[in-house]
């Protein structure tokens, strides 16, 4: 495989890779094109693969008729805060799991794995009741708390992989120089880990930004809805208005795409290091 490559082999390879690229990007292209057509042009024959006239009407409708701006802000606030707090908390637990040996360690790792295995929907009902008792239903702060808990297990495993790639000697030297363990972590390790931590944050952010079922369950007033919950509302009505839907989809996908483009290399590293080892 790594040896010589025949011309025919190369041709097959690039044909296939090219086809897959087209297949990968076409749905994204199509949703963007749909969103930029005038609402009337979406439902005309023959289907236009390039809009005859570009229009921002679908987008204007989102902010005029629907309160899409509010949903975007809600999602942005919840995902940013929850993603950041979860990353901070996971950094601490990942550090301990990477650097210390203790008896309950494998049990804790198992506990993290179990949360990934059990369908979270089994918790949906009881969580709703719990949040009712805490008076945190339909509350952005409450949703943040839940999202933090959802992000922590995987984020910990991912960050642990990054920590394990850094030699112990680094913080040992810092501690010999008189820094406390926490000081060594913050002042010496974290700067080295920065790409990993940024990737972990982005991963958390995107997960919270995209989360649907918890948000649908916990947020019921229109002013508190996050973007996915609002999109779900667009479906519930019998006929989907594909004009607004496609514009809303583009606005939802765009930020996560930008973030992923920015950090995909580190996320890939985290996924492969974290999950293969962990």
């Amino acid at each position: 495989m790594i040896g010589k490559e025949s011309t025919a082999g190369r041709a097959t390879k690039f044909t296939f890779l090219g086809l897959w690229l087209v297949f990968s990007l076409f749905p994204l292209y199509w949703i963007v094109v749909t969103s930029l057509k005038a609402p009337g042009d979406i439902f005309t024959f023959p289907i236009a693969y390039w809009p005859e006239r570009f229009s921002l009407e679908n987008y204007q409708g989102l902010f005029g008729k629907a309160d899409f701006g509010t949903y975007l802000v809600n999602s942005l606030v919840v995902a940013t805060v929850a993603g950041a707090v979860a990353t901070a908390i996971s950094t601490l637990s990942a550090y301990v799991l990477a650097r210390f040996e203790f008896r309950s360690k494998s049990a804790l790792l198992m506990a993290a794995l179990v949360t990934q295995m059990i369908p979270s929907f089994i918790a949906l009902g009881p969580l709703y009741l719990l949040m009712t008792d805490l008076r945190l239903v339909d509350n952005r702060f409450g949703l943040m708390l839940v999202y933090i808990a959802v992000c922590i297990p995987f984020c910990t495993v991912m960050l642990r992989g990054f920590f394990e790639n850094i030699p112990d000697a680094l913080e040992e030297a810092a501690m010999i120089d008189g820094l406390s363990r926490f000081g060594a972590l913050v002042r010496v390790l974290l700067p080295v880990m920065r790409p990993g931590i940024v990737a972990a944050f982005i991963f958390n952010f995107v997960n919270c930004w995209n989360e649907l079922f918890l948000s649908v369950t916990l947020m019921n007033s229109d002013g508190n809805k996050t973007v996915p919950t609002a999109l779900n509302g667009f479906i519930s009505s019998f006929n989907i208005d594909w004009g607004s839907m496609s514009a809303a989809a583009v606005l939802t996908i765009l930020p996560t795409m930008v973030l992923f483009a920015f950090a995909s290399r580190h996320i890939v590293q985290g996924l492969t290091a974290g999950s293969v080892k962990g």
Partner: protein
Amino acid sequence: MSTTSTSGVRKAPSVRKEGGAPPRKTGRRREFTTRRGLVVAAFMAPAAVFVAIFTYYPMIAGSQMAFRNWNLTDLTDTSWVGLGNFREVFTDPAWGTVLDNTLLWVVGSIVPQLVIGFAIALWLRRRFRFRGLYQALIFFPWAISGFLIGILFRWLFNSEFGVVNDLLQRAGLIDEPIAWLADPRTAMIAVLIANVWYGVTFFAIMILAALQSIPDELYEAAALDGAGKARTLFQITIPYIRTTLALTVLLRVIWIFNFPDLIFGMTGGGPNDETHIVTTWMIKITQQGDYGKASALGLLVVAILLVFAVFFLLATREKKQTGKRGVRA
């Protein structure tokens, strides 16, 4: 401070800040001191508290609901009903379809994802111009939520104005537009296509990472022995990365099993509840307020996945042997 004997360090460091914690390094990692215990506890505590309250507590509370008559529509009677909820699941006329669909969903997603992902990984192994860009581009589907992917493909497979029908008609493969999502069989095909679109990248990434760990010497040796492409693939590449393959597949099985988002967005389980998999069905039952039955279903999922976890552990245990065999080949 200076009396501490550090095993690995010969010279005393020249600069030492005042007030820092004394380095206690004797028997590092083995000796369990109270202080170390406190550090571990303090660093683990925030994570543990969050996960305990918002993940484990509801999960355990949910598990006991499986054995009770728990229905939001009538909370006056939440008595214990033994296995009643499970009986309700098994006797539900939808259960058979749901199981079939789940199996089809898992196998029909995993197999193409693995095969295509493997091929892409092999093809990406050799550096070529724009390889980095290519990887970044095919990574994009990963930034999108399953639910939105469902919506995207719902539009693509739209019976009247969908692009899939249009392309098939232009290519002369079909005469009449197909109402993809109106027939459970074609709807299942459509959701599988969407999931393959989504999941291939993950396999490609994991497998590519594993491939890059294979030493070149193995291939050189194989080439010297005159091994052909197919032989090299089956006797060197696959055995060498077998553990990663097994782990990736099993992790994905668990994950896809628990992945209702795409179907939820694309068909909502319809038409007539005929494209539900276990988890989408569970969400529907939860939304109807029958927490008891939904929890019973959840426990069944856990039981099924535990079987997979056993495979998972067996696969990891084989790690070292496989590695050696790979080197010897």
